[in-house]
Structures are given as structure tokens and as C-alpha cells.
């Protein structure tokens, strides 16, 4: 399993870049937001990967198990709150997109710029 030691980080990089590509290249605003949430999930994955300890278990004590390693609770706390914050901010973004659609009649970036230029 030696060669898989960094696999989780590579997946993080690939996901991050897929999300980044969608944000940079796509012109549809909703697609950009979907890309943003993939980007976000990649960061979550990085943090949770770092919290894992081999042979450890989730940091919740139980009388049935003693003398075991526990994974790191701190990154989990950070990500737990970030997920709910993430959905709220995504909803805010979607709200803005809906308003843009109502004002401009489109959600495609270049058409919006076209209308603004006129």
C-alpha cells in the first residue's frame, strides 16, 4: 500500500482542479456554482484526510472500547461547520443568479456582459 500513501491528496488535487475548471471556464452561472461546491468538497476532503490516524477510530469515547487511538477531532469540527456554511452561501449565490435571470433574462455570462455593454 506504500504507493497509495498520497492517493487521498491526489484525489483532492484532481477534485480541486475540476471545480476550478468549472468556475473558470464555464459561462453558465449555475454551472459555476456547482463547480464551486465541488471545489469546496475537495477542501473538506483534504481536512478530513489529515484528521485520519491509521488504526484510529472516530473521536467519540465509548466504554466498550479502550486503549485505542482516536482520529484528530479538530479538522472535523472545522469542516462540520463549514458544510452548513457552504450550503447557506451556495443558496445565497443561487439567489443572486435567480435575480440576475429576472433582470437580464439569461444566466450565461457572456450574454450578461453583452447586455451591460449596450
Amino acid at each position: 500500500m506504500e504507493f497509495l500513501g498520497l492517493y487521498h491528496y491526489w484525489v483532492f488535487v484532481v477534485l480541486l482542479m475540476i471545480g476550478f475548471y468549472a468556475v473558470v471556464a464555464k459561462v453558465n452561472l449555475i454551472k459555476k456554482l456547482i463547480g464551486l461546491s465541488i471545489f469546496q468538497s475537495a477542501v473538506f476532503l483534504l481536512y478530513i484526510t489529515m484528521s485520519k490516524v491509521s488504526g484510529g477510530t472516530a473521536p467519540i469515547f465509548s466504554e466498550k472500547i479502550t486503549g485505542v487511538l482516536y482520529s484528530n477531532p479538530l479538522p472535523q469540527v472545522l469542516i462540520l461547520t463549514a458544510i452548513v456554511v457552504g450550503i447557506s452561501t451556495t443558496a445565497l449565490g443561487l439567489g443572486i443568479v435567480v435575480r440576475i435571470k429576472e433582470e437580464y433574462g439569461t444566466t450565461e455570462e457572456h450574454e450578461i456582459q453583452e447586455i451591460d455593454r449596450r
Partner: protein
Amino acid sequence: MTVLFGVLLLTLLVITAVAIVRTKNLFVAVMLLGIFSLLIAANFFLLDAADVALTEAAVGAGISTVLFLGALALTSEFEHAATPHRWLSLAVVTGAALVVLYATFDKPEFGDPNAPVHQHVAPWYLQKTPEYIDIPNVVTAVLGSYRGYDTLGEVFVVFTAGIGVLFLLSARRGPAGRRRPDQAHDPAIGLRSHVIPLVVSRLLAPFILLFGLYVQFHGEYGPGGGFQAGALIAAAFILYALIEGEERTLRVLPQGALNALMVGGALLYGGVGVVGMLEGAEFLNYSVLAANPVKGQQLGIILIEAGVGMTVTGVLLSIFHAFAARDRA
């Protein structure tokens, strides 16, 4: 062996992400995003993060799909334009990928117990929690007590996002917008004419509510807490709204009550901190809330988790109603 399952699931995750970006149909992208959420929750669970996986489950399975579909109903289902400057974007992204990839080679190996991350405060949290707070779930202890300031900040971010959505979407549309008459008794609302989903959802919604409350108040002993519970309770009401229509849901839990939940939760959280100050300790130090410092900590955590749950429920439901009301306006 479990590492191998992790690797398989991560590979599926990458395939899903590629498919999401490639499809032109946004509805399909939202469906695939649901699969993405399921996969990443399974990965979190494999990586020992039960609390995080529960949060992702509560948020990703229902609420996220419902919000995206709500936005799609108001905009457009298809991506019309082709991607301009595709090769330029790909080149930029590849360059960035190589830089980040290069950085990963300095990362400690997966699961290394001697990684720097595990040397700082984490061992202290794991060691001292039984002594200072005495609850089994260290994640809740860190969330509620040790890093209470951080969580307070997050709650206010959620609160602000909720206010923002309400500001954006509750403004009335101009005269061009057609208002349909109030149709509270119309069988065509929601899925009221579909008897099987109707009966099953009526059966299920109270159980989701009950489970949400269980997650809220069991958060000290198992995976759970205010964030997960808030999302679950919101999901129960969203299920009710899908079946019975907005009007009835708003009659059960009116917008005024949602606003009160949003504000009340944030105030409860801040108030617990202020009471701590009045009792002569620092802001958000719960030790002084009861005669015994350990009991005080536990009381404080229960109270602030309740505040978090209230705010999250209020915000998520307000956002949902804001999108749904826009649909009918």
C-alpha cells in the same frame, strides 16, 4: 483493506466530478451532485469523521438537491453556450494542478500518527475532555466549548447568508410578474394528488422530526449536534412542503416564527456567552453557569447547540420558502 475501499470510492468521486462538469444538462448535473454528496459522505465515514458524514448526509441528500432544483425552476435547465477559451482554461488549470500536486509530495503519508497536525492541540483535547467537560463526543466538546468563538462566528455567517437570501428574493417583482390566486385548497398544489407519496410522507415526516431532535440532544454522546439537527428538521418541513404545498407549511411554521428561530438561536448563543461574563468569567466560558464547572460546561454546550439548531433550521427553511415563493410569484 478499508484503505482499498477508500481508494475505490475516491476514484468513483473523481469520475462523478468529471461527469458533472461535462454534462450540458444542468438537471443531470444536480442529480450527479447528489451522487457526489453520497460518495463524499461515505468517504468521510471511512476516514473516521462520523459527525462530518452525518452533516453531509443531512445537508447533501435533501436540502442541497431541493435548493438547486428550485433555482433551476426559476432559471434555465440547459447550458446554452459552448465553453470559450477552453484550451486556455485547461492550460491554466493544468498548471495550477501541477503546482498543488508538487506540494502534496511534502505531505505526511496518509494516516501517519506523527503528522504535525496531530502534535499541536489535538492530543490535549482528547486527553482533557473527560476531565473538563466529561462528554464522550470530543467533536462536540471542541465545537461547543474549546472553539466556541469559531462556532459563534459560523452561526453568524449562516444567519447573514439567510438574511441575504431573504433580501434578494423577497423583494416584490415588478408589474410584469403575474400573481396566481391563492390556491390553498387546490388539489393541484404539491403532490397532493399522488396518494402513495402523500401517505408515505405523512408517515415519514414526524419520524424525521423526531430523529432530528434525537440528533440535537444526543450530540454529546454520539455523532450529532445543532448543525446536523437543524438540517434534518428543515428537511422534515421541506418534505411536508413538497407534499402539501407552501401555504400549509407556512401555516404550520409561519415566516415570522422562522425569523424568530433565526434571530433567537443566534441571540441564545451570544446570550450564553454574556451570562458567562456577568457571572465573572470570560465570554463563552461556561464553567460558571452551574455550581460545578463540569456541569456548567455541559449545560453551556446543550444551550449553544440548541441555539445553533434553531438558527440553522430557521435559515434553511427561510431560504427554501424564499425560492419556492419566487416560483409562484
